């Protein structure tokens, strides 16, 4: 029995998403990434003596919207608490967060794997809190401990965060990956977060434990931090699970601790000493009143919710007959889904549209490092037009690849490309027959083989004919006519 068959993996994720409000959560400073250090600050977000927090209602709007999209119950009464700890990036030495009365609780989201299987994962809570500043350590060795000086940039201090805590419902790193993708898709659909991991607007910590299959009690959990991409989350979980299984097999006790993922070394390391038993001394924030959220307000926000990723994917399956996997990929972001729908409608060829978008277009974008489909020169109209050319046999699928390449680079109209490059498909039987005759004449041995029963060699002949026609001959016609000529 392999270890994976022996031990069940239990994973819960804590996702921190920066909310894309205009201003910070407790002051009027701009909430923007990338400005010069310490320019978006004020007495409030610097925690200067005498300053007081004032809650930004747009944060509530975004949190409620995200909570609803994650199928949570929104609390009519919620409050802020102080989480006390010392660190130079936290100017008040406490973080205003929500402890026992979060804004949203008891939600779920569904994930769909490559096989199209659906799984429901619980969400414990979503709460609002302020982000900390950013530390920059001036160090020659790269080690914080050797830093001669450390600088603090408080621009990020006070940026609103939604912390989303899942139930320990995930059973593999793949589940975790799909969960994160689903959370990201939902937060982007609802336009509450940019979810940009590079800019740190989406961060994730994982609680990982293992237990023998059949055991109800959860194993000792290890918290893994510092994973800065979805792929790293997957890798870190796999590493950590393997480490824990090896320990369990060796009879070693797994200790509850926080470990840091080191992407370079592809390992997790204990944060020994730093963590310990942290006592955050939570207590209700006396500077802010209880937050009351009316049913009416919640309903207004409910009405703002767009069609969510999974609903859209299900519609794509039923409306366009797409496979579950395609539907999942195409609905990961609204602009992509919109692009697909336009092409599918204009071309009336949904499956063909999906193939071209998921295959050629996304590959091309990936290659070019382009993340924004709206910036791509191949507009839905142009792609649909090209698909139309394939459909009416003006060009073959193969020729279309050439047309697409050109279109992606130049943004030119597909018909124009076909015309200018002389790529129109040859459907004239006579012209094709001429080519076939030429190829037959050039390959007597193979012709003999085919006639002798080795039908597989037909492929070679077709290839030669297509090559001779510079790819322009209609493949169906070539096949038909060749068969006729060789009498097979």
């Amino acid at each position, binding site marked *: 029995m392999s270890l994976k068959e022996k031990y069940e993996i239990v994973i819960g994720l804590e996702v921190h998403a920066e909310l894309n409000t205009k201003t910070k959560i407790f002051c009027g400073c701009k909430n923007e990434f990338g400005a010069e250090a310490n320019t978006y600050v004020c007495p409030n977000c610097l925690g200067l003596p*005498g300053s007081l927090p*004032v809650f930004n209602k747009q944060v509530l709007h975004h949190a409620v919207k995200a909570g609803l999209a994650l199928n949570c119950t929104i609390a009519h009464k919620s409050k802020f608490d102080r989480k006390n700890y*010392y660190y130079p990036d936290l100017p008040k030495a406490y973080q205003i967060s929500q402890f026992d009365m979060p804004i949203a609780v008891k939600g779920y989201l569904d994930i769909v794997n490559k096989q199209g299987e659906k799984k429901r994962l619980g969400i414990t809570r979503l709460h609002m809190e302020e982000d900390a500043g950013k530390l920059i350590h001036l160090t020659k060795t790269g080690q914080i401990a050797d830093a001669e000086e450390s600088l603090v940039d408080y621009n990020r201090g006070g940026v609103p965060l939604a912390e989303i805590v899942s139930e320990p419902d995930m059973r593999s790193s793949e589940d975790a990956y799909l969960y994160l993708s689903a959370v990201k898709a939902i937060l982007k659909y609802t336009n509450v977060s940019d979810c940009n991991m590079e800019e740190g607007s989406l961060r994730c910590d994982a609680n990982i434990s293992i237990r023998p299959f059949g055991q109800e009690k959860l194993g000792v959990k290890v918290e893994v931090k510092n994973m800065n991409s979805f792929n790293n989350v997957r890798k870190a979980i796999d590493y950590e699970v393997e480490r824990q299984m090896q320990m369990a097999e060796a009879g070693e006790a797994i200790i509850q601790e926080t470990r840091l993922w080191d992407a370079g070394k592809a390992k997790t390391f204990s944060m020994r000493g730093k963590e310990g038993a942290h006592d955050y*001394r939570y*207590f209700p924030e006396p500077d802010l009143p209880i937050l009351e959220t009316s049913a009416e307000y919640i309903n207004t926000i409910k009405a703002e919710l767009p069609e969510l990723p999974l609903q859209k994917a299900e519609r794509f399956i039923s409306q366009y007959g797409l496979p579950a996997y395609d539907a999942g990929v195409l609905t990961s972001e609204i602009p992509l889904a919109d692009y697909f729908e336009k092409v599918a409608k204009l071309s009336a060829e949904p499956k063909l549209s999906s193939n071209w978008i998921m295959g050629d277009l996304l590959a091309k974008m990936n290659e070019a490092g382009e993340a924004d489909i709206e910036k791509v020169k191949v507009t839905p109209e142009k792609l649909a037009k090209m698909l139309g050319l394939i459909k009416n046999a003006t060009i073959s699928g193969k020729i279309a690849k050439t047309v697409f390449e050109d279109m992606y680079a130049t943004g030119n109209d597909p018909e124009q490309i076909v015309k200018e490059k002389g790529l129109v498909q040859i459907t004239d039987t006579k012209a094709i027959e001429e080519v076939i005759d030429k190829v037959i004449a050039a390959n007597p041995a193979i012709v003999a083989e085919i006639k002798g029963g080795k039908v597989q060699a037909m492929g070679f002949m077709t290839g030669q004919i297509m090559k001779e026609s510079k790819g322009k001959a209609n493949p169906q016609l070539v096949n038909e006519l060749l068969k006729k000529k060789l009498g097979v």
Partner: protein
Amino acid sequence: MELYQQTIEELHKALTEKKIKPKDILDSVYQRVDAVDHKVKAYLLVTKELAYTMAATAEDRLMKNENVTELTGIPIGLKDNMCLEGVPTTCAAKMLAGYRPPYTATVLKKLTAAGAVFTGKLNMDEYAFGSSTENSSFFPTHNPWDLERVPGGSSGGSAAAVSADMCIASLGSDTGGSIKQPASLCSVTGFKPTYGRVSRYGLIAFASSLDQIGPMTKTVRDNAIMLKHIAGADENDSTSAAINIPNYLKDIKTDVKGLRIGLPEEYFIDGIQKEVKEAMQAAIEVYKKLGAQIVKVNLLHTDYAVDVYYVVAPAEASSNLARFDGVQYGLRDTAAQNMIDMYKRSRQQGFGKETKRRIMLGTYVLSSGYYEAYYKKAQKVRALIKQDFDEAFKKVDILLTPTSPTTSFKIGEKSGDPLTMYLSDIFTIAPNLAGLPGMSIPCGFDEKNLPIGMQLLAKPFGEQDIFNAANAFQYATDWHTRRPKI
């Protein structure tokens, strides 16, 4: 009579009649400061340059008769825990020595808008922790009535300055009695408004759920003028209340016929100084003569108030003071070897003894395992204390109690014994936990000629009721007009 001896009302009249200029008042006040502050030590910082600029602005307004308010040209002293942009604001704490805030507290903006003149920053107990001003990191303030005694605290500088005529009025702040108790010990009129009545923005926090800024003045009428100008909802303070502010002075009454005054039994106990008891009795007689109805009431949870306060207030303080860590501003020990060491050493050197005591106490009661037993339980009892008052105010309009169980004590007498010191605020703590408005007004002197004060309480946002009752008393008596001889 010298200008420095006069009230806001009197000076305002003289200013608008163009008999005097703001500069004349300021000259007079600073002359007085120069003459007596070396004995009283109320001022931490005299802001002469700023004051004369403000006086010039006020004069301009008076000349043009534009934007003239009752406070235009009136010299006002400030407790040193209210931020004033560019002016050292220290909380009388070594940790913040030389700290110049980059912004101004809402109350000070309001006073500036009214045309007031800021004379300087007044001494206090470090971070407002104390009842004697002995906990100031810099020096103690002396009671103008007896220089060997304390002025009370924590707003001791604010009380002493008004009492010794070193400003016409001052601002103090009150958490457990820090305006009312020193007002009582120095014989001035001190008001702690309802929690939420005055913005706390820019007030360096002690205990956020209790802190409130209030005026300290020579008369009730001056106090009504001051409160009108500093009260009101503030978009920068989410705990400030958007409740209509009466025109206190215009609406003020001098008669109390039919007014129901409650005497809480629990506040007239053994251990109160004899003369204080007698002064209360005399005050009650004054009110009776004026036609008030005296009613006995009970506030059953009174005994727990000090205990509750010394859980809640230090808990909030421990968190509020965590920001003084040497990172951004204030004292930093540069010899520290690493980050943790920097925190430890900076805080060890920057904080005084009482501050450390309260931080430790607050940290303890918030610690996991103790939170339920102390902090949470204290909040429950706090709710019961508030309920007691709610019930009492169904039967009466005003509650009358002593402000402090004793008159002023000698410097050093209680500073070694924090528990005895904490009891100085035994009568002011409970109403503060309930967020009630409360005023201390002079009502007599003991055998040593030390002032006695009484506390008048009303229901939340019932400030006008207090002004009325207190004003009637000051009409009928002259305790408030007496000044110390220094």
